[in-house]
């Protein structure tokens, strides 16, 4: 009998694992089980192009029925997994059906952390296609919009709403500035000014006490006593891994499925993406990353490890995440922000493009944030995990500035 790999979760991690199994020469059956009924779709556009109506559901589809059939991937949509028996090698679905596997890949991702101030009409989270479509409908009616949480989702939603012409947008976060943790204080201040400069009312360093609903609409109450009326509220305060269905299994759960360096949670059981907690060699810690690129890399690695069991490969994570806000692309690689010392290198158009490079306490290069300067990002991404010093990387990045007609670098 042909071996069977069951993949639970049909977003980017599940789809890429299925495709990479075929690319690795795996000739067993591949089942892709998804809770949602929609065809597998990509999530980064949900807070950007899809929300703004610039891209369609077709544009963000990761795997059509034709492409799945051609690759020999059996789609099992609209079916939630509810249980796992590792020793018996089967999963249970919500309707009671059991699927047998030889290898299992857990790719159930993460769900939006729900509003602690109650759910009510007009209060949104953003994680799924359905969330994005519901939010787009409300934003289409105009503002005021209050966005609670200035992480990636919140900052992007605020920017997209302004791009959509929503007049009255307020961005609130208890941190001193957007993306404060990964950007560090100076760059986070730049991001705060970016939003203010694009017409967003910003309230940082203050928490939310509650959301009230009345005949006039919603009212967001801040801890400092200020009140913001809202037609629409977006709560973007992080995500929690979808590992509840594994509670009765023997897998080790600790804010996600704990894996070894090969992505294995148990014999013949693997996890990828937002739900996976994997060892980070440089941090000497287990890390759960909610990053598109790391999910794609994990999917390729786990597929290889299933298809070529005799030569498994360990994860070699290099953190990389991007965020598009207004007409800016912010790219982040390696270890950044926090208390690290940092230098700024002006880019080809210094008013618009620059790189901020971060150093570990010993002076070695830790990571970088680049703004509108992808060529600098490449240099920095390749250098993460090398023994290079900050000064060496500063030199290499400076050399990426294009030479002008006068032969000088800007």
């Amino acid at each position, binding site marked *: 009998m042909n071996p069977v790999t069951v993949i639970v979760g049909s977003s980017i991690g599940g789809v*890429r694992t299925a*495709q*990479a199994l075929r*690319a690795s020469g795996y000739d067993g059956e591949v089942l892709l089980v998804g809770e949602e009924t929609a065809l597998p779709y*990509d999530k*980064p556009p949900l807070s950007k192009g899809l929300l703004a109506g610039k891209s369609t559901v077709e544009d963000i589809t990761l795997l059509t029925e034709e492409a799945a059939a051609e690759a020999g991937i059996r789609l099992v949509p609209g079916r939630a997994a509810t249980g796992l028996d590792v020793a018996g090698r089967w999963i249970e679905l919500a309707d009671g059906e059991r699927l047998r596997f030889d290898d299992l890949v857990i790719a159930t991702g993460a769900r939006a952390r729900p509003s602690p101030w109650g759910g009510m009409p007009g209060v949104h989270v953003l994680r799924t296609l359905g969330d994005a479509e519901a939010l787009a409908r409300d934003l289409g009616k105009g503002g005021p919009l209050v966005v609670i949480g200035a992480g990636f989702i919140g900052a992007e939603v605020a920017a997209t709403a302004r791009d959509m012409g929503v007049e009255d947008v307020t961005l609130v976060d208890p941190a001193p500035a957007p993306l404060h943790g990964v950007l560090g204080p100076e760059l986070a201040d730049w991001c705060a000014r970016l939003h203010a400069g694009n017409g967003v009312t910003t309230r940082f360093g203050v928490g939310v006490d509650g959301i009230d609903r009345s005949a006039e609409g919603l009212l967001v109450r801040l801890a400092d006593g200020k009140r913001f009326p809202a037609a629409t509220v977006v709560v973007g305060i992080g995500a929690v891994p979808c590992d509840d269905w594994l509670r009765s299994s023997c897998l080790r759960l600790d804010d996600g499925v704990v894996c070894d360096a090969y992505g294995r949670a148990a014999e013949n059981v693997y996890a990828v993406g937002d739900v996976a907690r994997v060892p980070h060699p440089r941090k000497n810690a287990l890390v759960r990353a909610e990053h*598109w*690129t790391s999910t*794609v*890399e994990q999917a*390729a690695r786990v597929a290889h490890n299933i298809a070529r069991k005799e030569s498994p490969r360990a994860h070699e994570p*290099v953190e*990389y995440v*991007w965020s*598009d806000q207004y007409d800016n*692309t912010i*790219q982040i690689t390696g270890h950044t922000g926090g208390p690290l010392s940092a230098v700024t290198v002006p880019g*080809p158009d210094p008013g618009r493009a620059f790189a901020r490079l971060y150093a570990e306490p010993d002076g070695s290069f830790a990571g970088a944030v680049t703004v*509108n*300067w*992808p*060529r600098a*990002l*490449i240099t920095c*991404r*390749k250098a993460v995990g090398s023994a290079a010093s900050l000064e060496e990387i500063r030199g290499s990045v400076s050399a990426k500035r*294009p030479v002008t007609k006068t032969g000088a670098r800007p």
Partner: protein
Amino acid sequence: MAVVKADPGLCQGYANCVVAADDVFDLDDDGVVVVLRDEVEESEKDRVTDAARSCPVSALVVESS
């Protein structure tokens, strides 16, 4: 041989392709993808396909010629 195609209009400069296969892809000074070799050997196809699939906006394809 396999043919490598890029849609510069879709490219957002995320650079995943360059990190995965810098012998085939690069970015120009404006951060837009440049295909350095538009034909690759069959033996390279899987690696270059992986690099193309790492594009977050699906701006790259590798097709059998």
